């Protein structure tokens, strides 16, 4: 009983397939415009893909033909089907709470059960139960305008859950909240998402770590990486996942304990699979011929910065030009040619680093993890 989705939207260059187990939470991640929201809107029935099909727990959500067959008008096209949003049993929680402004908090939460045909009393009972579940029982009689952002989002969560959806779609549910209310909602989500099927679109790696069993990374309308959260974050393959994990990632062809990059640079490291290493996860689709066969990952904190190449054999040395300096938790993160190094402010001053400076990033081979792509 899984969610199965295949869809294409030509105008947005979107083409993907995914499935979500019945008690699984999947984090859908990627840069803005990657198509994450389109996936959610197609699932909830607000946007019609050009082609594709989706089933949720054996129930068909939609089946849309490809190309010419979809255009044939009339009743001849029996393969085409589209379940309207209200029959899908898919709840949503968006960035904005979107509580109905004219209804009290209690009536907002009771709206779903009422629409499903519950009596007023039964719907109110369900609403009370969910309001208490999200710690908002004392807000029941208020109007949405009288709530803070965090309170409103909790009520919106209760409203979505009160319909007992088979799938919950969360579209950056914490993006509009201030930093003080985010942790509470996140732990609340962790509690209610346990044993529930959900897809969460987020930019925050903490959401993925705490809430998701799996991460799916999208780029330009395609899935570029998918796997268990821990595996994606320890052995990222896409640039996006690497930046999420806060790691430097290089790709090339692997041979033994070296990675040969396309530009001829060799990176020495230790192959993954040693004690404590995560089992490498499968790539979502076979990689194109001539593509990278292996990856090398290392943390910015393991990089030393020098003005001249140091002597010493078991080290990797990259000649780079500094592009950005930014504060990063007590250190200064030095970005240069797609790599990052964390250096103390004192060292920055001593080296006289500024954007444009030519430097050498040096990392010990023991700090570099190599794994197949």
């Amino acid at each position, binding site marked *: 009983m899984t969610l199965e989705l295949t869809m294409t939207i030509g105008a947005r260059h979107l083409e993907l397939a995914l499935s979500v187990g019945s008690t699984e939470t999947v984090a859908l991640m990627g840069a803005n415009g990657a198509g994450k929201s389109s996936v959610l809107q197609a699932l*909830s*029935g*607000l946007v019609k893909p050009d082609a594709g099909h989706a089933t949720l727990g054996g129930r068909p959500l939609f089946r849309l033909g490809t190309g010419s067959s979809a255009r044939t008008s009339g009743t001849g096209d029996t393969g085409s089907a589209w379940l*309207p*949003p*209200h*029959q*899908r*049993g*898919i*709840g*949503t929680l*968006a960035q*904005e709470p*979107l509580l*109905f*402004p*004219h*209804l*009290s908090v209690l*009536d907002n939460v009771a*709206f*779903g059960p009422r*629409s*499903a045909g519950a009596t007023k009393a039964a719907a109110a009972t369900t609403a009370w139960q969910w309001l208490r579940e999200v710690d908002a029982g004392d807000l029941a*009689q*208020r*109007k*949405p*305008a*009288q709530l803070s952002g965090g309170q409103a989002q909790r009520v919106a969560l209760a*409203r*979505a859950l009160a*319909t007992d959806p088979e799938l919950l779609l969360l579209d950056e549910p914490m993006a509009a909240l201030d930093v003080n209310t985010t942790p509470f909602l996140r732990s609340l989500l962790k509690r209610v998402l346990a044993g529930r099927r959900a897809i969460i679109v987020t930019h925050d790696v903490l959401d993925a770590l705490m809430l998701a069993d799996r991460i799916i990374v999208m780029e330009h309308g395609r899935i570029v990486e998918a796997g268990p959260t821990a595996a994606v974050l320890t052995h990222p393959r896409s640039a996006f996942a690497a930046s999420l994990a806060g790691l430097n990632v290089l790709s090339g062809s692997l041979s033994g304990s070296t990675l040969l990059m396309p530009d001829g640079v060799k990176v020495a490291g230790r192959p993954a699979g040693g004690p404590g290493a995560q089992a490498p996860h499968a790539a979502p689709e076979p990689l194109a011929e001539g593509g990278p066969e292996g990856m090398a990952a290392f943390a910015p904190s393991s990089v030393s910065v020098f003005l001249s190449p140091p002597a010493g054999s078991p080290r990797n040395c990259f000649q780079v030009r500094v592009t950005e300096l930014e504060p990063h938790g007590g250190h200064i993160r030095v970005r240069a040619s797609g790599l990052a190094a964390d250096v103390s402010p004192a060292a920055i001053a001593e080296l006289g680093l500024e954007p444009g400076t030519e430097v050498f990033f040096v990392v010990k081979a023991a700090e570099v993890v190599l794994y197949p792509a």
Partner: protein
Amino acid sequence: MQVLAPRNSPRRFGEPWQFQAVPRWIYLLAGVGALFILLPLFGMVAQVDWAAFIPLISSESSIAALGLSLRTATASTLLCIIFGIPLALVLARARFRGQGVLRALILLPLVVPPVVGGLALLYTFGRVAWIGQTFSTFGIDIAFSTTAVVMAQAFVALPFLVLSLEGSLRTAGQKYEAVAATLGARPSTVLRRITLPLVLPGLVSGAVLAFARSLGEFGATLTFAGSLQGVTRTLPLEIYLQRETDPDAAVALSFLLIAVSLVVVLLAYRTPRSPLRVLVRGSAPPQDVLP
């Protein structure tokens, strides 16, 4: 139409600032504009013969005209609500070919002289016209009846309600409706519990405009319904008729018409419990605002 839109549009509170970027000379022009409306009103009120006011407005023909006006304007407003809500919904939400043309045609009565509207109705529903003839064979004569008055009023008033409501629907957007649908609400439930409550201010102001327009309708009524006392002679027609014979009575009745219109507008826009304010401030009494 914008001038008559709700004063507080939903979800838009005034900034708590003392600053405003209105140049002073604007106040001068605004004052002139306000005087242009107010002076004639005062001028007419000054002409009212207060000593004879009650007898003037309580003549048999005046009472009949006032009663007919209130009844027909109410009926016409109801018609506008029943057909205006679907029209506004279709224009604001649906997408189909010829939508722009349809909107333009529906709004035509706003710009066409009412006499022309009355003629159009006469040549459609009149005794000699094609639809009118069909009705006639069933013994129903629409033209020159109270029904004709209501139809003439609805013809000129419907665009006011459609325009006001369509604007509200577009402003409200479809976000709440989409959320309601994902919560399992059927389209009819969404309409009843979400869409209409959210655009209630626009609906109320549209209905008030439609009522006021119906109350003041003259040209189309005279052309299509004629001027029969107690049957089709509404207050504006009575005023016009009295103007020739008894100018004092005409002025008194005009004052009455203004007073009735003012009460309606004030009721809709100024009461503390106005749906506008309840919706915007969320300061509703504990019970549901809506049935």
